[in-house]
C-alpha cells in the first residue's frame, strides 16, 4: 500500500475510536447482564407471601400516593375514591390512613381462571377488624397459628399474617399464603418474574409486572384482548406519583421481529390519536407526554403527565360537568 502518513493516521484513528468504543460497550454489556445487577427496583418483603405460580405481580406505595400533591388536588374534586367507603364498611380498613403499601398477585387456579391475593402492610386494629367481619356474617378460626376470617357467601377470607400485615383473597389462596413460608417460599424467588423489575425505575410509587407466556399467564385478560397480545411475552409498568404521574410501560415481545411489529402498531395508534386531537383537546396533555421507543424485542412507552393533564382526563372534574351541562 502506498497511502501516505496522514491517510494512515486517519484510518488508525477511526479504527482506534471504534475499537475502544466497542470494547468498552462490550465490557459494560457483560457486566450489566450479570443477574445480581439486573434488578433496579427494591423488593418489598411481603412478596414472600405471594404464591410462586403468580403470573402478575403488583406493588403500590399507598402512603406515598395519599400524601402526594396529585392526591391533594384530586381530593378537592373527588373527596373519596370509587368504592373507598364500601371497602371501609366491609373490612374496617381506611385506605387513606391505615395502609402503607399493598402487594398483589394474580394466580391461575387451573380452571381457565385466575384469583387474586392482596397483602396489605400498615397499621391495623386486628380486634376491630375481626369484630366487624363477624358482624357481617363472617366466621373466625385459627389456621396454622394465624387468625383467619372467612366471609361465607363470597368464599373470601382475610388473615393476619404478622403484626401490621394482612392478606385478603379467596379462602384457598389466603390459606396457601399462610402455608408458603413452610412450603418453599413465595414469588420473590422466581427470577423470570422478578427479573422484569429491571424495566421499572427505582423508587417507583407503583408497579406491575407480568408474564403472559407462562401457562395461564393471559387468562386474566378478556378473550379479545388475549388474542391481540399473544405476541407479548411479558410486560412491566412502573409509575412515580407526585405532582403528576410519570413512568413507563415496557412490553417484551416474543422476538425482535414481533417487537418491531408491536412498535409500529403502537406508533400508528399514537399517530391516529394525534390526528384526532382536534376533537379531543383533553387528550393533548396525555399524547404530548407519550414517548415510544424500542430496543430489540422490548417496546417502551414512557409518559409524564403533569397534575393538570391528569385532572383534564377526569370525567368528574367540575369544568367538564359545566361543559356537559345543557
Amino acid at each position: 500500500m502506498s497511502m501516505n502518513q496522514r491517510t494512515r493516521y486517519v484510518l488508525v484513528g477511526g479504527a482506534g475510536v471504534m475499537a475502544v468504543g466497542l470494547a468498552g460497550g462490550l465490557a459494560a454489556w457483560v457486566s450489566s447482564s450479570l443477574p445480581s445487577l439486573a434488578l433496579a427496583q427494591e423488593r418489598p418483603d411481603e412478596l414472600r407471601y405471594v404464591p410462586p405460580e403468580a403470573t402478575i405481580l403488583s406493588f403500590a406505595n399507598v402512603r406515598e400516593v395519599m400524601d402526594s400533591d396529585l392526591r391533594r388536588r384530586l381530593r378537592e374534586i373527588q373527596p373519596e375514591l370509587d368504592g373507598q367507603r364500601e371497602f371501609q364498611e366491609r373490612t374496617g380498613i381506611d385506605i387513606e390512613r391505615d395502609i402503607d403499601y399493598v402487594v398483589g398477585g394474580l394466580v391461575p387456579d387451573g380452571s381457565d381462571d385466575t384469583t387474586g391475593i392482596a397483602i396489605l402492610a400498615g397499621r391495623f386494629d386486628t380486634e376491630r377488624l375481626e369484630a366487624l367481619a363477624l358482624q357481617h356474617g363472617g366466621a373466625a378460626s385459627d389456621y396454622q397459628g394465624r387468625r383467619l376470617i372467612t366471609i361465607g357467601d363470597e368464599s373470601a377470607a382475610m388473615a393476619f399474617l404478622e403484626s401490621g400485615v394482612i392478606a385478603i383473597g379467596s379462602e384457598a389462596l389466603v390459606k396457601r399464603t399462610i402455608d408458603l413460608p413452610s412450603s418453599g417460599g413465595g414469588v420473590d424467588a422466581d427470577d423470570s418474574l422478578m427479573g422484569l423489575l429491571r424495566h421499572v425505575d427505582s423508587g417507583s410509587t407503583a408497579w406491575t409486572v407480568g408474564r403472559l407466556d407462562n401457562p395461564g399467564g393471559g387468562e386474566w385478560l378478556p378473550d379479545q384482548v388475549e388474542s391481540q397480545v399473544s405476541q407479548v411475552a411479558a410486560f412491566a409498568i412502573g409509575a412515580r406519583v407526585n405532582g403528576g404521574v410519570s413512568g413507563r410501560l415496557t412490553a417484551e415481545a416474543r422476538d425482535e421481529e414481533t417487537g418491531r411489529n408491536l412498535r409500529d402498531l403502537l406508533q400508528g395508534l399514537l399517530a391516529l390519536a394525534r390526528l384526532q386531537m382536534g376533537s379531543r383537546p383533553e387528550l393533548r396533555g396525555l399524547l404530548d407526554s407519550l414517548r415510544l421507543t424500542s430496543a430489540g424485542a422490548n417496546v417502551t412507552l414512557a409518559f409524564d403527565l403533569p397534575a393538570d393533564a391528569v385532572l383534564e382526563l377526569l370525567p368528574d372534574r367540575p369544568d367538564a360537568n359545566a361543559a356537559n351541562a345543557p
Partner: protein
Amino acid sequence: MVDANARPAFGRAALRVFDLGLGQMLWSRRTVFMALIAGGPVLIAALLRALASLPTFDAGAGQIGGRAVSLDGPDIFGLMIWTFYLRFTVPVLGVFYGTALIADEVEDRTITYLFTRPVARGAVLAGKYLAYLACTAVVVLPSVTIVYFLVVPLLGGSIGRNFPALLVDLGLIGAGLAVYGAVFALVGAWFRRSLLTGLVFVFGWEPLVVVLPGYMKYLSVAYYLQGLAPHAMPQGDALSVIQALLTSVQTPLATWVNLAALALIWTVALAAAMRAVERREFVLGQ
C-alpha cells in the same frame, strides 16, 4: 518472464485504485463537508452532556428543573440515529460521494488517464467504491460511537444494556452507506446531472414514496433500511405521523426480507454501475 503489458487481476487492480483513491478522497474538499455532518451530532451530544452537568439537571431522579422527563439517554440516542444518521447523513454522503466516483474524473478530465491504464474499467469503479466505503465509515461510524457514549448515560440510561442496539445501528449505517453508495455510483455512471438526480431521489422520491400507500416504497432504499431500525420512528412532523399510521396498518417486512432486498439492490446497482462504466463512452466537455 513477466509480461509488462499483462492486465493485473480484477481484485488486484481494484485494490490499487482503492489505495490511490482513498488518499484523494480523504483529503478532498468534500471531506470538510463530511466532517461537518458527522461532527454535528457529536457537537450536539457534547452540548447535551454539558447541560446535564448543570444543577437544574437531576440525572439520578430523571428530572430537569424539578420536573420529571419521560425521555432517557437511549431514547435521545435513538432519535439522533433516526434524525441525523439514517435520514440525513447516510443518504447525503451516498449521494455526494457515490455520484462523484466517476463524475469527478470526467469533470477533472482525468478519466482518460485512468481508462488508458491496463486495468479493467470496472476495477476502477470497484476500487473507488471501496475507497468511498472506507472513507465514510472511518468518519461516520466513530461519530456514532462517540455520540452513543456521550448521550446514552444521560437520565439513567445504561451503556451496557443498550450495547446490542449500538451494534445494530452501526451495522445499519454501514449497510446504508454501502447500498446508497452503490445506487449513486450507478447514477453517477449513467446520468449526466448525477448529483441533481441523486438529491431528487433522496429528498424528493424517498420521503414521498415511503408514506404513500401501495408498492412504490419498494423502489426505495430508505424503506428497507428504516424497517431494520431498532429505535422507534420520531414523529415530529406531519409526514412522520402519516408514515407511522401507514406502517402500523400494513404488515411489516420480515428482517430477512429487508436484508435480502438491501443485498439485492447493492448487488444489482454495483454490477450495473460497473457494466455502465465498462460500456459507456465518456465524452469530455470543452
